[in-house]
């Protein structure tokens, strides 16, 4: 019999097998006790505040009301502004494809303010810069005042560096960590009572999907965990992406906690899902909101070399447990949340949901999760079918963007 594998395919399979062996040894068995909580799903066709605000308000009510969560509290909101603000999918605005839409951010802030939030900090670690987030989003053609004016005491902070803090906050991973025992993060992730992840509903080249959990990968400051991070101490300004977390080719600044096992796999498809679980363990998510009104298929941003489509699933998903919420969102996307490595959308990577469930953060078993609002079957937008069709064709050529 002749060999049907190319060298690349063979290496990929060999890596998967090695990771699988490591996985079998490394996954704890707390899935059965992982909590389940209600997840709200709603159809929402547009970003018009007239439609969006009542829909989101109803969803939060279905989750028990925002006041219970935010009244009198400092709320930190991690949004998703991945990649450069000058890099679009075709001619489409960034918020219609891979950035969390500003109207969703503003609506969430408005409703939090209405529910009594004392302070609302909108957080992101924008690509390779220490510029204020306001300046970054202007380059995306957004108006910062739309968000800052949504409620009293709304502010932005760039968490890709020390920011306005005096020192980095050391945040420990309670379950001990898959890869990291603790992280050094911008103070905003510690100086808050409530942490909210507002994500975009997307596939992801490295992690299969990116939803409320994967959104938190970006809470790591690149001054410590980035390509240009200082060897001994963090740099003053961030430079480049998070290549050192992806591939483990070097460690973060020595001032920060180092990896638990430098001999663990160096593949991003092994490391990124585990790092995400370590991050959401260290910085638990109290409210997960997933913007699937308009988004893209084919990956997390325009730099991914798969055919990309701007799509309008017209759906929002929200919950108080990020694993439960992501599980429901996966089902809305046409994927099986119980999928493991080797099955879509985790053909090449481990499932962040499985890893999070295994350490007891939340269940991904839909049988245990109550869905309020629109039933999954009615909200479904079949990313999985588009993925199958896309992958049956050769990838498109690269253009010049950036």
């Amino acid at each position, binding site marked *: 019999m002749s060999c049907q594998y190319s060298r690349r395919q063979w290496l990929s399979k060999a890596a998967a097998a090695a990771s699988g062996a490591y996985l079998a040894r490394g996954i704890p068995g707390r899935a059965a006790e992982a909590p389940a909580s209600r997840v709200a799903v709603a159809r929402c066709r547009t970003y018009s505040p007239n439609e969006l605000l009542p829909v989101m308000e109803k969803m939060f009510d279905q989750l028990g009301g925002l006041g219970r969560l935010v009244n009198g509290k400092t709320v930190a909101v991690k949004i998703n502004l991945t990649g450069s603000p000058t890099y679009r999918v075709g001619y489409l605005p960034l918020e219609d494809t891979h950035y969390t839409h500003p109207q969703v951010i503003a609506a969430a802030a408005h409703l939090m303010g209405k529910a009594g939030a004392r302070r609302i900090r909108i957080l992101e670690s924008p690509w390779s810069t220490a510029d204020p987030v306001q300046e970054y989003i202007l380059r995306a*053609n957004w108006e910062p005042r739309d968000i800052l004016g949504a409620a009293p005491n709304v502010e932005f902070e760039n968490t890709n560096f020390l920011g306005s803090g005096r020192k980095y906050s050391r945040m420990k991973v309670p379950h001990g960590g898959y890869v990291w025992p603790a992280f050094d993060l911008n103070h905003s992730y510690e100086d808050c009572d409530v942490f909210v992840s507002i994500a975009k509903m997307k596939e992801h080249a490295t992690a299969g999907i990116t939803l409320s959990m994967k959104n938190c990968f970006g809470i790591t400051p690149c001054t410590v965990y980035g390509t240009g991070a200082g060897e001994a101490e963090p740099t003053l300004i961030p430079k480049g992406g998070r290549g050192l977390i992806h591939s483990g080719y070097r460690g973060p600044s020595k001032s920060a906690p180092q990896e638990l096992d430098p001999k663990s796999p160096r593949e991003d498809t092994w490391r990124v899902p585990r790092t995400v679980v370590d991050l959401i363990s260290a910085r638990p998510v109290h409210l997960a909101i997933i913007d699937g009104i308009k988004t893209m298929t084919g990956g997390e941003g325009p730099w991914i070399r798969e055919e990309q489509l701007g799509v309008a699933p017209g759906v929002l998903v929200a919950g108080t447990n990020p694993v439960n919420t992501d599980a429901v969102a996966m089902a809305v996307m046409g994927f099986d949340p119980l999928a493991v490595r080797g099955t879509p959308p985790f053909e090449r990577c481990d499932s962040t949901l499985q890893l999070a469930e295994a350490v007891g953060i939340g269940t991904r078993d839909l049988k245990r999760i109550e869905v309020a609002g629109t039933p999954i079957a009615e909200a479904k937008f079949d990313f999985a079918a588009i993925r199958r069709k896309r992958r049956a064709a050769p990838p498109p050529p690269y*253009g*010049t963007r950036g």
Partner: protein
Amino acid sequence: MLRDTAIEVIDPAAAGSGGTLVKGVWPGVRMSRRGADADAGPTGVAWVDSNAWLARLTAARHPGAVWIDAPPEGNRPGTPQQYLITMADSAAAGARWLITLDNALAVGIAGRDPKSLAAWRRIGEASRFFAEHAGWAEWAPQAVVGVISDFAGTNEFMGQELLNLLDRAGQHYRIVFKNRMTADALTGLRAVLYADQDPPSAALRKQVLAFVESGGRLITAPVWGETPGKLSGPAAVPGYTERALGKGRVTMAAAAPDDPYVLANDSVVLVSHRYDLVRCWNSGAFWSYYTLAPDRARAAVQLLFYADRGPDAASVRVVGRWRKATISTIEEPAPMPVKLETQGEAVEIYLPQVSQYAALQLEG
């Protein structure tokens, strides 16, 4: 003049007699020695060499034609795209590139090699295009900041590099010579930058502080000296403090700037991207030159894309209430209508596939 081109044949030694000849660089994205990876600026942005700032500075200093002597780096063979970039980089800013071919191209042309002849024809087409549209560079450059300096002596490096790097940061600037300030030198600007090593003269100080009091911003360093107004706290960028003065602000660096890259990029944020005159998406490394016709009802935005492949699905936001836009390129010189979308006080224009250069002509 060479047939069917606007290429003028001159003796390089005599180029300076009818104007000014200055030494430039072979423009484009600077490649590393391995050739595969582009060099990057301090924050990972591809490093671009350009003569556009030099063309403007020289023209502001010396009346008459400006010639840029920028031969292919190390006499390495240039691609047709690189020749187009080189010509446009000078010509869009109103100067003329002293055509210098690499040996391989020159030999190819002499030997009637079809590829070399095609490259030569393209250089001719480009020269004709820019000769026909020389007026665009003579219109009034639109600017957000004024760079005040003498750009000479101890201020040569900082002053000149600031111009170069403001271009890279996408900021539109006005060159302001501190020793020949006119009464309207700062009119229409949002901010001025003063990074010279010597303190300002009393007259300059008075004019700039009046500009601040009427709503402008001064970005400077301790060399500026005592400043009236009330300390209002740290600025949007670490390392600077702000004072409120009248309707404006004085933004003072904690120390004398030593890195023009940092100062250029800091200044863009200190002024705010809110006032960007041109924003571009999916463009890669680019430069834009926005000039307004004397009737103020027409404008030109010349766009230069430094990558070897032209941008794909690029769009451009230009400040101004423009109603109509057309695009011209070297390959398609006749103006073609392009889709334009009004966004408040600006318009967004969706570009078709273009090569390294495109000119937008706007009408109000």
